[in-house]
């Protein structure tokens, strides 16, 4: 891959309960990463994490945005929503734990694998949230 001279920044708004649009942002992120020649395995990991974030914002939040920053040595994906926060992060990180609605389950989500998947696919993972507040998830992928 040709070395990137400057950081590329992509930002997408993700709407509350917009199930039909969920995945559009991640699809675009994937397209851009492929276009600039990032290794296919890394692209896939980023795509999975971005998509899980997008689904989480659609299912659980009041809406938010996904930001992707691509520099010469890493890709940073940040999912930032407008609330209503996670009461118990440790519980939310447990495989199989979910508070998703029936509508989300009918779409094939709500299996309690979203956050664990995001942590698994990224090289660095951090989450900030509390009940009633915004949630911010940051994932870093080394390239």
């Amino acid at each position, binding site marked *: 891959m040709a070395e990137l001279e400057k950081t590329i920044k992509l930002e997408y708004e993700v709407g509350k309960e917009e*199930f*039909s649009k*969920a*995945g559009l942002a*991640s*699809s675009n992120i*994937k397209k851009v990463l492929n276009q600039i020649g990032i290794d*296919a395995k890394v692209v*896939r990991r980023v*795509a*999975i994490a*971005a*998509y*899980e974030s997008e*689904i989480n914002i659609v299912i659980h939040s009041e809406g938010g945005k996904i930001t992707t920053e691509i520099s010469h040595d890493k890709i940073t994906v940040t999912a930032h929503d407008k609330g209503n926060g996670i009461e118990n992060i440790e519980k939310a990180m447990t495989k199989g734990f979910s508070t998703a609605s029936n509508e989300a389950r*009918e*779409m*094939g*989500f*709500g*299996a*309690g*694998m*979203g956050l*664990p*998947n995001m942590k*698994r696919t990224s090289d660095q993972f951090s989450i900030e949230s509390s009940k009633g507040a915004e949630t911010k998830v940051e994932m870093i992928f080394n390239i």
Partner: protein
Amino acid sequence: MLLREAKEILDAEILAGEEYMDREVEAAFSCDLMSDVLAFVDDKVLLLTGLTNLQVIRTAEMLDLSNIVFVRGKKPNEEVCRLAREKKMVLMGVKHTLFEASGMLYKSGLGAIKIEGA
């Protein structure tokens, strides 16, 4: 296994991607939970599912997974098929249950995926 062979075994109807039936799949995964698909599946895997919504195609897209069989006689709508065609995916529909379709493919030599730590 070639998709063409899977189609014969399952007596499947091709819903999208007729031109890609010479593609090969190395294993299959049967699941209605897209989060589990995202957690466990690699490319070159045939996905069997009873879900027919847009998120199945989006999930497959993120994984570079291009081949999907819909079971229990379910068929996705045109919007779903259109997105699949745009992504060069193969969609097939079968009348069998998820268990039956999986068993038919397994019996014919198509194996399961390996799950880390399981």
